C-alpha cells in the first residue's frame, strides 16, 4: 500500500507560548470553583436516604419491646441467594411473650450472600424483617459479614406496629377467661 506523507503544520506564535490553552483550561477550573459542590465528604458526611430504600436487612421489635420474628422461616425459604439461616425454637413458658410460643433461637443473615432484593421483607407475615437505611457493611473476615440475631436486632431497633396481633389475641383470651367479651 502506498504511503502518503502528511506535512505537519508549524505552530503559530500564540500556540508556541501555550498561553491561550492555559487560559481556556483555567476558565473551566474557575467556573467550577464558584459552583456549589456536588460531592459528599464520605464518610464524614452521609447522604440522605430516601424512604423505601433497601438497605441491610434487619430484625425489629414492636413498641412494647417484643421481638416480632416468630421464626416461620418464610424469608429463609424465599431468599434467592440463600443468605438467611434460622434456628427455630420455643419461647420459655415463663417469658413475657410466652403467648407467641415460637421465636428464633438464632437468626443469621450472611451479608456476603445478600443481594438486597427485599423479598424477605415482602414475604414476612409478622412484619419483623425490614431493609432499612443502613447501607455500609464492612468486615475483615467472612464471619464478621454474617449478622447474627443480636446484631440484627441492634441494627433494626423498634418500628411502629399497626396490629399488635399477638398482644390483642392475648388480651381477648384473658377477657374470655374471666367470662367477658
Amino acid at each position: 500500500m502506498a504511503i502518503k506523507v502528511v506535512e505537519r503544520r508549524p505552530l503559530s506564535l500564540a500556540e508556541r507560548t501555550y498561553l491561550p490553552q492555559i487560559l481556556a483550561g483555567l476558565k473551566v477550573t474557575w467556573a467550577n470553583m464558584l459552583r456549589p459542590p456536588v460531592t459528599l465528604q464520605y464518610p464524614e458526611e452521609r447522604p440522605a436516604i430516601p424512604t423505601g430504600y433497601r438497605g441491610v436487612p434487619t430484625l425489629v421489635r414492636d413498641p412494647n419491646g417484643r421481638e416480632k420474628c416468630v421464626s416461620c422461616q418464610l424469608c429463609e425459604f424465599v431468599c434467592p441467594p440463600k443468605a438467611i439461616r434460622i434456628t427455630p425454637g420455643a419461647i420459655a413458658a415463663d417469658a413475657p411473650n410466652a403467648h407467641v410460643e415460637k421465636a428464633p433461637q438464632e437468626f443469621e443473615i450472611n451479608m456476603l450472600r445478600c443481594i438486597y432484593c427485599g423479598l424477605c421483607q415482602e414475604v414476612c407475615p409478622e412484619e419483623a424483617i425490614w431493609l432499612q437505611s443502613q447501607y455500609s457493611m464492612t468486615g475483615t473476615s467472612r464471619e464478621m459479614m454474617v449478622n447474627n440475631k443480636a446484631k440484627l436486632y441492634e441494627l433494626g431497633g423498634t418500628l411502629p406496629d399497626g396490629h399488635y396481633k399477638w398482644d390483642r389475641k392475648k388480651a381477648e383470651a384473658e377477657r374470655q377467661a374471666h367470662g367477658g367479651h
Partner: protein
Amino acid sequence: MVTDNKPSLVTLNVDGVEHQVPAGANLVDALAKIGKEVPHYCYHPKLPVAGNCRMCLVELGSPMRDRATNEVVMENGKPKIGWQPKPAIACATTVSPGLHVRLESPGVKACREGVTEMLLLNHPLDCPICDQAGECKLQEYSAEYGRGASRYVDEKNAKPKHTRLGPRVTLDDERCILCSRCVRFTAEIAKDPVLGFVNRGSYNTLTCFPGRELAHNYSLNTVDICPVGALTSTDFRFKMRVWFLKQTPSIDTESSAGANTTVWSREGQIHRITPRQNDAVNDTWMADSGRELYKAVSAPNRVLRATVKAAATSLESALAAAAEALAAGPLAIVASAHSSVEEQRVLARLAQQKGAKVYVPAHRGAGDGLLVSEDRSPNFRGALVTGLTDRAADADLKTLAAEIDAGKVKSVLIVRDDAAMQGLHAETLAKVRSVVLATHQSVTTAAAEVVLPALSVFERSGTFVNCQFRLQAFAQAVPGPAGALPDLLVLAKLAGVDANGVWADLAANVPALAGLNGALLPADGVQLDGSAWSALPFPEGKLLKFAPATRA
C-alpha cells in the same frame, strides 16, 4: 408373587365425563383414583366414616326411571338425570352404576366456600407459628375454596393452647376443626379410646378422659392424620418447617413387621419419621417407638472412625488388618438380622469361602399385635432367603463362646451386633482375632481388635424381608460419617466379591428372588414365596396384616 383379582368396574359420570371406577368403592377414593380431588377433612380411607366436616359435599344424580314401566326416561336421546335436591357428602356415598356427580357446579362451590368460612370463624391466625403449615388441609382448602377475607366481626373464641395430651403429643384446641379423626383412630385402630369431645357449640373441645392421657405407642399417628395443626408432635414441635424437608422412603427397623416409613431430612439432618402407606403391611400407621430411631444417628457413642487395637486409622489400613485377622484360622461369623439382604448375601459368600459357621443372634421383645412384632430385627427372613442361615435365630452366643474356649475358632467377624449382650463376653472375645462392624460403641467394640464403622439404615440403601416375606426397599436419606463406606462395600471388600453384582447373583441363584432387582422394587415391595421356611419356629404373633402360620 401374588396377583390381585381385578375388581369389577362401574361407570361413574363426573361433571359430564364418564369414568370406570371399582364397584363398591367409596366415592372420595374412587374420584381420587381418577385424579379428581374431593376436598375433605374428616374422611380417612383407613377409618370409619364420620361425615361431620361437610367439606366433601357434592351433587348426586342418577338416571330417572318410569314408575310404571321401570324404563329409563330419555330426554333428547339421553337418559334424563334426576338430581337430588340437596348436596350429599361424598365420603358416605358408595359408587353405584350410572351415578352422576357434580364437583364443579355453582352449588358445590358455594357449599365448600360456606364450610370453609364456618371453619375459619374461630380458627386462629397461627400459620406463621403452626407446625402444620405447608401440609395443612385447612390452609390448602382455604386458599383454593375460601373467600379470602373474613366477614366475622366478633371476637374469636379463645380455647386452651399448648395442652399436653400425652408424653409425645401436644394439643392446640383453637386450631381443632372437630373432625374426630384422632378420636376414631384411638378407638378403632389403637383400641385405647382416650380422646373425646367436651362442651357444646363453639366451645366444643377435644380432650382426654379425666385421669387418662394419650400415651399408647401409636399416639403420634393422631398427629399424622390431624388435617390441621391441632395435634402436634412434641418432639418435632417448632423444629423445622416441612417445606424444607426432603422425603426419603425407608423401613422401620424396630421389628420384623417392617412398617413403611418416610424419613424427613434437611441438609443431612433427620427431623422426623412418618408412616408411608402400604396397604399390605402397615396401612398408614406406624409405632411411636419407630419414629425415635433417627436419634441414634447422631448419638455421641457413634463409631465414626475405623480403629485397629483401639488406635484410629484409615478405613483402607483397617480393612487390610481385618482381612489379615480373618485369615488367622477357623472363622466364625456373627451375622445380623439388621443387615440388608444384599449385605447378608455378601456375608453368606464370605462364610462359604472361609467355611465359617454363621450365627444370627435373636432379638426378642414383646409384640403389640399391630406393628411391633416379637422379632425386634427387621430382616431375619432375609438371612434365610439369602442362604446366610437355615435355622431359627440363635437365642444367645454361648455355643460360639464354648467353641472359642475349646480353641476350635481362631477368628470372629461380628456384624452390627453387641455380641457381649448375647453371651459372647469380652474376655472370651480377647482369646481370638476379632473384627467388628458396628454403628455404635459397645462392650464388643471396646474388646475387638479391628472396628469398622457401619452405617445406619438412614445412611445406606438396600432391602429387607419382613415377617410376611415381603421384600421392601429402603433408600439413603442422609450421608454417613465422613470416610465411612456402606456396610455392603466393606463386606464386599472383605469377601473379595463385586458389590454391584449382588442382585445378579441373588436373582440367578436364589429361587425366591428369581428375576428381581433390589434397586427396581415397587414402592410397596414384592411378596416373596416363603413356604420353604414354613417349618421354622418364628416368634411373631398376630400383627395388623400378618397372621402366624398355624402349625399342624
